[in-house]
């Protein structure tokens, strides 16, 4: 059991930064909190509501997302969209992700070149 906890802890740590990147990429088309949560989890990016909602708020505060209230339906919903600054950060994070992936691949295959 302890091994399982250990694995879960390390997996969470590994995934932490990827949630930000996933949000920035996914929100190129505007969406609201719950729909984003569902679509990320459906695509295999595991994220908890208690993490995602405060994260959206923080990214908006940092100017990486813009938001707009949609009142067309019975329940008003806040739609988030990636801002130009968010787009730039997403590009940078993606490049770094690829670099890390390459480096890890070289490590596992033992190719020193």
């Amino acid at each position, binding site marked *: 059991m302890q091994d399982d906890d250990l694995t879960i802890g390390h997996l969470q740590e590994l995934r932490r930064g990827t949630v930000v990147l996933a949000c920035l990429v996914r929100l190129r088309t505007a969406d609201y*909190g719950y729909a984003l949560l569902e679509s990320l989890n459906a695509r295999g990016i595991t994220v908890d*509501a208690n993490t995602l909602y*405060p994260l959206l708020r923080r990214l908006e505060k940092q100017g990486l997302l813009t938001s707009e209230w949609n009142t067309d339906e019975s329940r008003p919903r*806040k739609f988030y969209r990636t801002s130009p600054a968010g787009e730039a950060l997403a590009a940078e994070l993606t490049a770094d992700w690829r670099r890390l992936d390459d480096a890890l691949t070289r490590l596992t295959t033992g190719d020193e070149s």
Partner: protein
Amino acid sequence: MTASLTDRYVWAAARSVPEAQRPEFQRELRERIGDAIDAHIARGAAAADAEHAALVELGDPWQLAARYVDRPLHLIGPRYFAAWWRLVKLLLVILVPLSAVGVLLGQVLSGAPIGEIIAEPITVALSVAVHVGFWTTLVFAIAERSATAMPVATWTPEQLPQVRDDARAGRLGDLIGSVVFLAIFAGAIVWQQAGAIFVDGERLPIPVLDPDLWSFWIPYFLVLLALEVAFAVVIYLRGWTWTMAGVNVLLNAAFTVPAVWLFLSGRLLAPEFLDAISWPWPSGGPVVVILTFVFVGIAVWDIIDGFRKAAANRSMPVASVVG
């Protein structure tokens, strides 16, 4: 109509959010709760159960609000913890003994009863420790929550402590014991001058030691006690050696020989004191013999102990740090 669970939850969470952010926060939270309830209903839950389950998932509203507005959920975080811990330790080490000794001195000088002399410094030391802990923590907890960062001294390699000599750490107990005993002994010698006999709670001006001794012998003994303190500090720093054991013999002899000689020749205790406790000096016979044996016994035991420790020290490898 009574407020729904959702209304109560939103109100409880919004309470701890700064007023400027509150309307937006409440709106966002309602959206989130509404969507979570819908999700539960879609999975086949009854409306009331769905609301309850959704709020359980959200957890403690105060904690949720703290996460939304980035408020720390700890008293002192990693930024200040090291500085806080060092400061608390430093203040405790300085202030607690200082206040205890200060109060002890004040009590002795004002001629307080022995019970108060012991109890008062302990009470004061405890309350100083609690105050130091509380106020330091309060200041750091406020700094943790303030927008502007408090300047904290950056760590440099020069602050590294010397590698501790474990044998010395083991001798610290001996040092504290010796110094406390010697301080109490010296305090008692001064204190008894104003009278050591209490009748119905009233202090009679009868000293234990013959006041004539103040011309030479009492100052002599007090100086010896001071030398003993210095000796204890040197032992703490350097450890026992054969030389130190030899010095210990001299110190013990310098104290015990005159004390026993004064005692046996009837010049140590004040005549008024002997009268007051109705001790028919010098025909005290067995008591005098027993007291003399106790005096000499303590000195001899202390001398033997010194040599024993010097011998034990000899057989152990000397702890040294190459640097």
